[in-house]
Structure formats: C-alpha cells, structure tokens
C-alpha cells in the first residue's frame, strides 16, 4: 500500500525513546513505525513493559520522543514547541485514563466540563454540553454526583464523557476497561466504537483485556519496544493471538 500521510489519523515513523542514560538507560521505543486510520478503533496490545504506554504518550504529545516523526491529522509533533504541543492536546486529543483521574472535589458534570473550560468555553455552555454528553453515556440525572458516589463503571463513563465533550479528533484510551466488569466494559467499548466511526475521528486503545479485542478494527502487537505484528480484524471475530 502506498504511504500517504494525509490519509492517516496518526502516522509514526522511526520513533525511538530512551529513558535514563548510560548503564541505566532503557530503550522503551526502538524505531517504531505505526499508523492509525481515520474512522477506526485501533488497539495496541502486548506484554507489560513492551512500550505500549510510551507509544501512547508520544502520540498524545504528553511525552517527547528522541528521534523520528509523528504526524497527528497532519500536524507534525516533532516540529511543535512546548506551548504548541499543549494547544494541540487541548484541541485535538481526548483522554481516557486507566485510573479515570476524575477530580474528587468536582461533580460529574464539572469533571466533564474541564476540557471545554480549558478551551475557553464559558461555564454555562460547558455545563450544558456536559449534561447532554452525560445523558449520552447513560448518566442522565447523575451530573451533580461526586465521583466517590459513583460506581467504577459510572466513573469510567464520566471519564469517557470528559474525553468526548470537546469533540476531539483523536481519543487516547489507556486500559479503559481494566476496572470494569464484563457488562460495563462491553457498554464502554460499544460507545468508543461508535465514536471511532464518526467522520474525522480515531480511537487508539492500549489494553490487556482480551474481552474487548473484538471491538478493534485493527490490532497492533508490540514486543520489546517494537511493533511486532498488525492484525486487521473483522467485526465479531477474535484476534489470532492472546496477549498476556
């Protein structure tokens, strides 16, 4: 297939990242080449310590890489200043973290409002939009609840609403179902699948959870800081491997 950067949501070429120096240096990414297409839900899988999270961090612009190129929707991260990277994240990336990272002192609707507020929206508009999104993730009427009053599944749905509220083009998910039961996990993944299908969007998921592999359009398998294999998966089929 001919490479055309502009057709990819994420286009990674020759990216390396080493932590530490000298004898304690650890190469987390070793000349990684990787793509994610618009409209797809892509999963990155692999054993612990293989570099999945490091790759996710570099794509999201939260971690600087040593060498290589990363384009996200045509924006070259390696050419951006720190301030430009911050603006890039603010406008283009939605985050779903493994540990949710909801602010405990804020209600669900306030937590969801945060990305809009960071983008300069007024409080009234942000909260109105957040209420609507909470309803979409099945939390209608629970907007005033503090995270501590919500179950793990509900907290993750709040986190998903927060990741989507400012309509980012790329949604980065780090183990989004690790704290959820099968039913809640399935519901979350169906929602992410719908988001990925929206025009001009892409969802990248790092996971160990083989229960959700079936929701991936493609799976990228990592080993020892490199992309080992990439699998195209048809709807409803299990992947041809079982990562630990």
């Amino acid at each position: 297939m001919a490479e055309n950067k502009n057709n990819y949501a994420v286009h990674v070429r020759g990216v390396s990242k080493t932590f530490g120096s000298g004898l304690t240096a650890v190469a987390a990414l070793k000349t990684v080449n990787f793509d994610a297409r618009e409209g797809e839900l892509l999963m990155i899988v692999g054993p612990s310590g293989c570099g999945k999270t490091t790759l996710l961090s570099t794509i999201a612009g939260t971690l600087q890489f040593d060498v290589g190129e990363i384009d996200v929707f045509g924006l070259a991260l390696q050419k951006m200043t720190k301030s430009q990277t911050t603006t890039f994240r603010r406008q283009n990336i939605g985050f779903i973290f493994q540990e949710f990272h909801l602010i405990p002192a804020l209600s669900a609707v306030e937590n969801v409002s945060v990305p809009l507020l960071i983008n300069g929206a007024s409080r009234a508009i942000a909260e109105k939009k957040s209420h609507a999104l909470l309803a979409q993730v099945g939390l209608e009427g629970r907007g005033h609840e503090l995270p501590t009053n919500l179950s793990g599944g509900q907290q993750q749905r709040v986190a998903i609403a927060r990741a989507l509220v400012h309509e980012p083009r790329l949604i980065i998910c780090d183990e989004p179902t690790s704290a959820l039961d099968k039913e809640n996990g399935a519901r979350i993944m169906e929602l992410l699948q719908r988001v990925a299908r929206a025009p001009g969007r892409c969802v990248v998921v790092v996971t160990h959870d083989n229960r959700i592999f079936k929701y991936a359009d493609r799976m990228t398998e990592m080993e020892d800081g490199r992309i080992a294999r990439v699998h195209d998966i048809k709807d409803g089929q299990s992947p041809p491997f079982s990562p630990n």
Partner: protein
Amino acid sequence: MYHIALKMLLGNRSKYVVLVSGLTFATLLMTQQCAIFCGLMLWTTGSLQNMRSKIWVTDPKVEQVNEVRQLRDTDVGRVRSVEGTAWAVPLFWGLQQAKLANGTFKQIQLVGLESATLVGRPHQMVAGRIEDVRLPNAVVIDELAILRLSAGRAKPIGLGDTFEINDREARVVGVCRTAKSFFGMPYIFTTYDQALQFAPKTRKMLSFILAEPADGWTVEATARSIERTTGLRAYTEKDFFWATIRWYFRNTGIPMSFGITILLGFFVGVAVSGQTFYTFVLENLRHLGALKAMGASDGLLARMLILQALTVGLIGYGLGIGLTCLFGVLVLKKGEPPFMLPYQVPLGALGAVLFICIFAALLGIRQIRKLEPAIVFRG
C-alpha cells in the same frame, strides 16, 4: 477554570482548614504582637500626650521625655526672651511617693503646672475643675490614681479626700482622664509652686519649659532659635515623640523581644502554610497532571495555584485581623495590656501573608513546571 481551582481547594477540607488556621495564627501573632508593641511605645510618650505643648525645652543631654535633667529657674526667662517665642512656662515633672490610708506607699508622677496659665493641664476632667488646683495643697488625680491610691479606704478616693505626698497633705479637687504611661504610675497634677513644696528640695527643680512659637514662626524655626540662643535642647512635640520612641528602641530589649515573636509568627506562617500547600499540590499532582495532559498550560495551572493560595491567605488574614481586633476591643475596655493598631500594621501583615501565599504557590508552581503530563499514564 478558576471555580474548579477553588472547588479543588475546598474539597480537601483537612488541608484547607490547616492552611487557613496556619495563616490565621500567623496573622494574629504578627498583628497582635505589633499592636501591643505599638501600644507600649505609645505609653512611653504618655507625658507628651497628657501635657500637650508645641515645644519642649530641656537640658541639652535629655534624649527622651521620661528622662529629666533639671534646668535653672532663670532658663524660663532666657527662653521667653528668644526671638520667635510667643510665651514659655515652667513645668515640674517628677516621680514622688504618695502615702496611702493603710500606711503603704505608691509612686506617682507629680506634674506641676504654671499656676497662671495651667499650660500642660489634662485634656479631660472627669470630676471637679482644673482651676481649683490653685487652692492650697490641691491636686487633681487621674483615674488610675483612684485605683492605686484607694487602698485602706472604705470607698475609692475622690473629691475632698486627702493623702500625703512626701509627708505633705494633698487634697483632691478634681479627677481627670489621662493617657497611660510606660511606668504605670498615676498622674497627679498641681501648680508649679505647690509641686516644689511637695517634692524634696534640690538645687535645681525645673524639669521642662513649655513654649509656643510667635505669630509668623513655625514650631521648628522657634525650636532652632531657642537652641541657638540658649544652648538648651528644644524639641518640637513630634521630634520629642520620635526621639522617645527611638530611645526605647536603642536602649531596651523591648523591640528585640517583640520582633522575635513577630518574626516567629511570620516563620510559622511560612512553614505551616508553605509546607501544607506544598503537600496539597503533591497530593493533587496526578489531577494536575491530568489537567496538563488535557491541554491546561503551565500558566493556567500556576494561576489556579496562586488563586488557591491567595484565597486561603486572604481568608486566614481576615480571620487573624478579626481576632486581633476582638483582642483589641477586649483589652481597650480594661486598659491593659497596651494596644494600638495603626493602619500600617494590618497593611504590613497583609504584605507578609501575601508573601507567604506567593512563596507557597511558587513551591507548587515549581512542581507543576517539572510535571510531565505523561505521569497520568503511569500506574
């Protein structure tokens, strides 16, 4: 985002309470000790407040109002003859012993006013008339004297009652209100001539000369003129006030001991608030990291931290000032300990609290600048 910052702050109740308490305590300690110190310094100038005069002429070696080196009687005439002096009158001031009804003794501050003009008279009479002080053996006592000189009496000393000053009978013809003095002794007013009778005889008896500038002369010009012509020291009231304050600063350990307490308050504020706020930031580091990952700039996060620090700072400051004022209201009713809260004290304390807050916020901002947003992906 600023309401989010405030909710994050208020959401952590224990930290919020410790921060506000620390700053309240620091403000209270700084302002209350400053107010007591200012009050104490004001007490050192009690005589200046009770015997108002634009110019005080003294021996050249006198450095403050509570220090007396007697002048010659003829010095009054010399001062009167100086160009620029409208008038000059003698004043006696000395510590004397009063014998109480129960036979014990109390020290008093005896003030002798020139009998014709009564210049230096107390400002406010509570009972009797100041003019009656011209009667034989008559004295006007202040309210503190009622407390101090009433021992051994069936009822508090008052108009018509007598007591002894240096074995000489004194009859109370009036009660006045005076500013308290540093030594805590009551003021007893009489005429200059009678004061010389009450006091033990010495070669020179004149304590101060009170003077007024002539029309067209400033107080300062007249004072300089008196000094040039007579060789005596002539203080304006303002100069004498500050000379007295400076003398106590230089010659007593009072400023040092109060200064240490005030500094302690400041450092307690820095330590408690700085450390607690820093811990608050550390506890929220992952949330701040998440905000940073979501695109919050270092500047926005720094402004959020400054807002949080200033919020606890201003609340703590307000409570601290409120407690100091409450303390002031309570002690001013009793008259002790000394208390004066000039506007510079709360203003200075506000500056100190803002410094503490900015210092605490800077500790947090330093962490935020170092914070990698990728922290949110680590388990």
